[in-house]
């Protein structure tokens, strides 16, 4: 069984109002050194698959079909045994 971690982030150029709002709040709390905040999603799950080989391609599928919206989001994942 593997533990999979998926990171979904707003695509470059797509506006990120949440990241923006967080940046402003951090500044108002005195953390001026913070810039270029991007806010995304983080998913973790266990994955059980018999045939080892195609694990990566299966996860890529899940991301493209469901977990990320390719119009606005990029994704990346890590697999831990």
């Amino acid at each position, binding site marked *: 069984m593997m533990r999979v971690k998926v990171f979904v982030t707003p695509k470059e*150029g*797509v*506006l990120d*109002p*949440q990241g923006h709002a967080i940046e402003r709040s951090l500044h108002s709390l005195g953390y001026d050194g913070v810039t270029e905040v991007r806010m995304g999603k983080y998913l973790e799950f266990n994955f059980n698959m018999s045939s080892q080989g195609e694990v990566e391609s299966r996860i890529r599928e899940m991301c493209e*079909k*469901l*977990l990320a*919206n390719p*119009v606005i989001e990029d994704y990346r994942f890590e697999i831990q045994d």
Partner: protein
Amino acid sequence: MHWGVIVFPGSCDEQDVHYCLSDVLGQKVKYLWHKDRLEGNWDCLVLPGGFSYGDYLRPGAMGRFSPIMQGVVEYARKGGLVLGICNGFQILCEAGLLPGTLVRNASLRFACRQVFLRIEESNTPFTCLGKKGMLLRLPIKHGDGCYYADPLTLERLRKEKQILLRYVDSKGKTSPSANPNGSLDNIAGVCNEARNVFGLMPHPEDAVESVLGSEDGLKIFSSLMNACSKGGRKAWRE
């Protein structure tokens, strides 16, 4: 005219659409359950507003995989009329039936209010009883209504005249303050290239009787009725 209203788990406005079509407009309407396959003959399918799958992950992301959606996609590809309102719009974008997508409101807050909309094109079955430049007053109520498409897509939408509704002020002007959610180019509703699929964030079904404050929503439904009547279909295609 036969209308089908698709019910997703978490749909909230399906009864509003049903009431508006059957009680106010005297149409034949049936609910279609998301787990069923699409069967039968329909003149128009409506994907209502609400929070399919709780809007979890992304609005519309899971609803698009409901079993019935396969049939909806085929139906749309064959030229069938599909209207997506609010969450229905979001689902249609996720399903690839409409370009672009809807993201978090710029304010990051849910927005419920009456807005003014300007009809931008009348050569569609959804707006054929309207006139270019005509104003509608309709409610919005959404947290993720900010329309986004990449620059190329946006350019194509303008060129192909697929932008059907824009948020405007009471005088009919687009302006940042008339834009309730930060949508690109004040876009409130778009159709596909074939002009048979339309998605909009405002709720025409909640503005169909004077006692509710506005009847402007009828424009959209009666346009569809007109388009489906004898000869109507031809009219909007020209």
